[in-house]
């Protein structure tokens, strides 16, 4: 298995480039901020980008098929709110997590039907889902009597999200590792992963090869919504409250993470390893700028500039290859 995992890394010239960027960022930040090179800080960064990595791993497969999912942020928010609402109103936590994940998958099913079956352009279909899910998230919060749900949550609400595995490792990091390897596994070892690449590389050829394209796309959307929903629960449980606006712009973050990781928007190529590296770049950037006390306006500019640079560097490394 290890050998098989090594192969794509070596074949892909973009991944070393990304790793190089990360290395440079770490060196520069270590010199510029005395508090940067600390285990606690890396822990912070991982905690922050953990959600992105989990969702983007799934969204990445969707992008590999040449589609995209803009509704993850709304599904993320919806699930957090729903979980909080149910927990507050007497549904046992474990049960509530299960129901929330199931309902989150329904959003994926909606996306899957719209994109896979009805062949609607994914940008629009998932934008529509975004609006609906976000609206409903706000309505649930409103039905609870406010703009977010915090009060009256049961005592053990946060015990899931703040659980420390072996008393040391935050559970979210464990899930990040699980998600990473799960999607690496899906990508390399399962027919679902292989067919995802096929659909992205040439949809019509995939159809004529007997690949059930609709099914693949639907499964991926459901999977992605499941991840978004699960992260919504995880996040809400970690913070100890649920707000319907937490997912704003999350979809664009996820998209940027995938693109920085070298996934083509047109589909056919990309890997979850790239997603991991892309997320680390974003995490380091924000963490570094915050540590240096750079104001938020400059951070916005910085995000755009880094996006351009990262894509440009990758394009060059791709050009060298062919």
């Amino acid at each position: 298995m290890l050998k098989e995992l090594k192969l794509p890394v070596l074949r892909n010239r973009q991944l070393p480039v990304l790793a190089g960027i990360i290395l440079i960022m770490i060196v520069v930040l270590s010199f510029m901020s005395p508090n940067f090179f600390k285990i606690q800080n890396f822990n912070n960064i991982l905690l922050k980008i953990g959600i992105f990595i989990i969702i983007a791993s799934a969204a990445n497969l969707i992008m590999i098929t040449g589609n995209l999912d803009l509704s993850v942020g709304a599904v993320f928010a919806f699930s957090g709110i729903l979980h909080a609402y149910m927990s507050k109103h007497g549904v046992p936590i474990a049960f509530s997590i299960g129901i929330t994940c199931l309902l989150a998958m329904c959003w994926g099913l909606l996306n899957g039907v719209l994109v896979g079956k009805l062949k609607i352009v994914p940008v629009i279909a998932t934008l529509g889902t975004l609006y609906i899910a976000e609206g409903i998230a706000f309505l649930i919060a409103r039905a609870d009597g406010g703009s977010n749900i915090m009060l009256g949550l049961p005592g053990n609400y946060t015990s899931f999200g703040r659980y420390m595995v072996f008393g040391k490792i935050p559970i979210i990091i464990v899930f990040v590792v699980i998600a990473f390897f799960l999607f690496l596994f899906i990508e390399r070892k399962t027919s679902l992963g292989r067919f995802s690449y096929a659909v992205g590389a040439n949809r019509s050829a995939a159809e004529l090869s007997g690949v059930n394209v609709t099914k693949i796309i639907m499964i991926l959307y459901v999977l992605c919504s499941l991840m978004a929903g699960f992260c919504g629960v995880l996040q809400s449980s970690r913070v100890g409250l649920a707000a319907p606006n937490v997912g704003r712009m999350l979809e664009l973050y996820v998209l940027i993470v995938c693109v920085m990781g070298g996934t083509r928007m047109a589909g056919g190529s990309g890997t979850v390893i790239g997603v991991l590296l892309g997320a680390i770049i974003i995490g380091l950037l924000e963490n570094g700028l915050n540590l240096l006390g750079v104001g938020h306006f400059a951070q916005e500019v910085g995000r755009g500039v880094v996006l351009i640079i990262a894509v440009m560097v990758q394009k060059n490394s791709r050009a060298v290859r062919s």
Partner: protein
Amino acid sequence: MKKLVLVLLIVTLAAALPVFAGGGRERESERDYDFVFGKVPYTFEHAYHQSACRTLEEYAAREYNAKVIIIDGEANAEVTLAAIENLIAQGVDAMAMHTGDAGLSAAAVRLAHAANIPIVTTLIRPDIQTAPHIQPMETASSQYMGAEAARQWKAAHPDKPIRVAMLNFGGIPQIWEMRTGAFFDGVKSVDPNAQLVTMLNGYGSTVRSMEVTLDILQANPEVNIIFGANDEMALGALAACEQLGRGKMNDGVPVSEIIAGLDASSAALVKIFDPDSSFKLTHGAVRDVARAEADTMYGMVTGAIPVKEYFETQVLSQPIDFWNTSLAEAQRFLELNFFYTGSLAADVDAARSR
């Protein structure tokens, strides 16, 4: 034929949906009201504004037999002004607006006055002072909060210099004047050597504030007073502190830091009255602001208050903190301002048992 039935069904459903969603109620009842008021809140996404709107609706109906039309400003300049324009077109008798920007307030006032409709602004004072204004006394309360936080810290840790970190909305100047800046003034009045270490954007969101606070505390672990310019951000800061093993208090005695927020929503008060949590101060005013808005609108419509003159109604933004406010007072505050029906003491106990 089947298709036609389906289409008809969908059309009927589509037409019925908005009614189901709460619209279309005014038809039978609007004529029964004496007045129609308009209200544009900053954004419905905050509990504060949802409560304020509800108070306004109920109070105006009860006191003045007035109907209130609410159009959300969505925290967006174009949407807010469009809402004002639409209210004007709908011919309301008077309106109230609460925005985040002085320029926006001024533009709204100009629009309303051009259409000869009385308008009252809230919180953010427009630069052109030609209309009545409701001013929650946030500056004084923020100063008080800063001073109290500094006092409590100094009493517990006289040896540790005060280092303040703040989370704001990203450079809205009025927020500095009334909240962040005023708070820091308060701190300095107690300890002139206090330093403002950093101020970053928490986007008004709990989760974003938590992430930002993690970075702040990484860069400046010595920070011991954190002020979030609304309760959501303060709660985010608290979550970050808890994650780092901080955020604790020893029965009201500061250990690692003191956190202050603003709005005094129930979520915040539950933390504030938890003796073990480091989130300890906030202030807010919902009911009185909403009532003042209704009173001012009524006053302008009936001619008691001049429409085009600056007339400031000051409202106390009630400070609430662990050390000086009793649980009963806080309970009453929540009931009056946030339609709170629970028991604060019970909620605090429930939250503590976590």
